[in-house]
């Protein structure tokens, strides 16, 4: 728990120690004072936030039930529909679109639980990136070092939470876009199982891999937000019909019955030593000595890259045809290349995905939770194009997805937890489970948090 803990704020509001309006006004002041140097927000919804907060206060004053997240300030990556706001998805092109007429499902569910939406957050254009170096809206800066990236594509979400501007944010993750900024900014990020949370009202990128999820400063906040957002949604064909499985009540269960192992091979190579040291500290705290090898991760990344490029381009074909130069130079050439991918290559990549899924299923018959680094190195400098990995100079930005991309490729649930001892820049460790077993991840994360092995890094 931290001073910015969402459930702590909700408890104070419910106990009438502070009003939701006071919390909202204070949060808006913080955003006004500090966001100009961070560039997390693309829209700040001051009036509607104060109005929503007053509704929470009125409900409490009238003896009503304002919800489990009463008065908790939150913000969302600007690819989520927010009624009355144009959904930018990081682009200039979408700025000409009409305003959304309703909230995305997950936004509506958080607001329905009493959370107060403060604004929308910067991202890589159309979610195609790992750094949030957005040419239209400027780069989002890492709160722990303003010369460095926040990660991406949910960089505004990671930085806003890590700066303490809001205790809770929503992001989306196709190849690592929740986990990478969570790790580089030093906060918790959940990418649930593919299909667990509704994507309805979120601008899609790679439909085969698109997930949405929360970023927060504590395990309990992450669980509380996740629980509120669960549930079927007929407006998202990918969303599961499974009943919701609450995780907040399970944080005290411990890990005694869980088989936990460290992923080796791909996940233990090409990273900086501090990254693997962070994984080992987590493994030691959990008593995890077993090593397991997921095969063919480079091919998994290759296949994920092909599918992402082809699906991403397919969503933007009209604009690629009519106004290619209005795309961000950081994404434009990659989208155009994606439009030229031969269909047979795309199908081959999908076939490999099914093969790889079977191998992963075999592993999860033997273990419950795997540990792996989130990124191979901490935050890059803004504008850094290359990095030396294993003695070779390589493009830096794609390398941020080295360890995240194979896991989202097959839709596994993952929590990126912030390593407590990482200095001077944060690092993350991925907790990975079999599909639909988010509860195991939360139990492990809670044990690690109580042991002080993982903790959010909040830049005051």
């Amino acid at each position, binding site marked *: 728990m931290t001073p910015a803990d969402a459930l702590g704020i909700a408890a104070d509001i419910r106990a009438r120690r502070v009003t939701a309006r006071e919390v909202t006004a204070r949060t808006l002041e913080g955003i006004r004072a500090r966001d100009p140097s961070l560039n997390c927000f693309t829209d700040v919804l001051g009036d509607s936030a104060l109005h929503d907060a007053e509704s929470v206060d009125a409900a409490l004053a009238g003896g009503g039930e304002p919800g489990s997240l009463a008065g908790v300030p939150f913000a969302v990556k600007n690819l989520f529909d927010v009624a009355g706001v144009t959904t930018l998805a990081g682009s200039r092109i979408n700025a000409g679109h009409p305003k959304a007429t309703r909230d995305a499902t997950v936004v509506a569910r958080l607001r329905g639980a009493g959370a107060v939406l403060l604004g929308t957050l910067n991202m890589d254009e159309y979610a195609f990136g790992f750094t949030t170096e957005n040419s239209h809206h400027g780069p989002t800066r890492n709160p722990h070092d303003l010369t460095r990236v926040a990660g991406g594509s949910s960089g505004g979400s990671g930085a806003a939470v890590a700066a303490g501007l809001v205790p809770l944010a929503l992001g989306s993750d196709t190849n690592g876009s929740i986990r990478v900024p969570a790790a580089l900014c030093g906060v918790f990020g959940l990418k649930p199982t593919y299909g667990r949370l509704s994507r309805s009202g979120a601008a899609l990128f790679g439909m085969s891999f698109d997930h949405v999820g929360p970023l927060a400063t504590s395990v309990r906040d992450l669980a509380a937000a996740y629980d509120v957002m669960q549930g079927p949604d007929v407006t998202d064909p990918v969303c599961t019909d499974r009943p919701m499985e609450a995780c907040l009540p399970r944080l005290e269960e411990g890990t005694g019955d869980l088989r936990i192992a460290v992923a080796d091979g791909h996940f233990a190579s090409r990273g900086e030593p501090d990254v693997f040291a962070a994984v080992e500290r987590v493994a030691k705290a959990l008593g995890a000595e077993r090593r397991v090898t997921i095969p063919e991760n480079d091919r998994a990344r290759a*296949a994920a890259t092909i599918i992402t490029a082809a699906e991403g381009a397919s969503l933007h074909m009209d604009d690629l045809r009519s106004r290619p130069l209005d795309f961000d130079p950081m994404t434009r*050439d990659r989208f155009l290349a994606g439009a030229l991918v031969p269909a047979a290559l795309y199908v081959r990549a999908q076939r490999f*995905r099914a093969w790889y899924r079977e191998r992963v299923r075999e592993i999860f018959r033997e273990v419950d939770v795997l540990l792996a680094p989130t990124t191979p190195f901490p935050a890059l400098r803004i504008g850094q194009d290359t990095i030396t990995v294993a003695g070779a100079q390589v493009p830096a930005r794609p390398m941020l997805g080295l360890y995240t991309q194979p896991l989202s490729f097959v839709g596994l649930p993952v929590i990126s937890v912030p390593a407590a001892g990482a200095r001077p820049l944060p690092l993350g460790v991925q907790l990975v489970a079999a599909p639909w077993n988010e509860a195991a991840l939360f139990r492990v994360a809670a044990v690690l948090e109580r042991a002080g092995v993982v903790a959010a890094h909040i830049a005051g």
Partner: protein
Amino acid sequence: MSAPPEPSPPASTQAPDVARFVDEVAPLLGLRIPPECREGVTRNLAGLLAAGALLGDFPVGDTETAPVFKP
């Protein structure tokens, strides 16, 4: 009598002319590649084709990947 044509090398040993692919296929899809993008598009497409080559000879058995459609 003209000299016989020189045998072509096997297709697999020829470097793919990705720039030519971009130039010829993009217009068929209604895409005008701006001149300042041509090099970047070619480089990125070459990367995607290389990724595809990595998958090309990998045995995935009789894996079925039809999209599921529920009427």
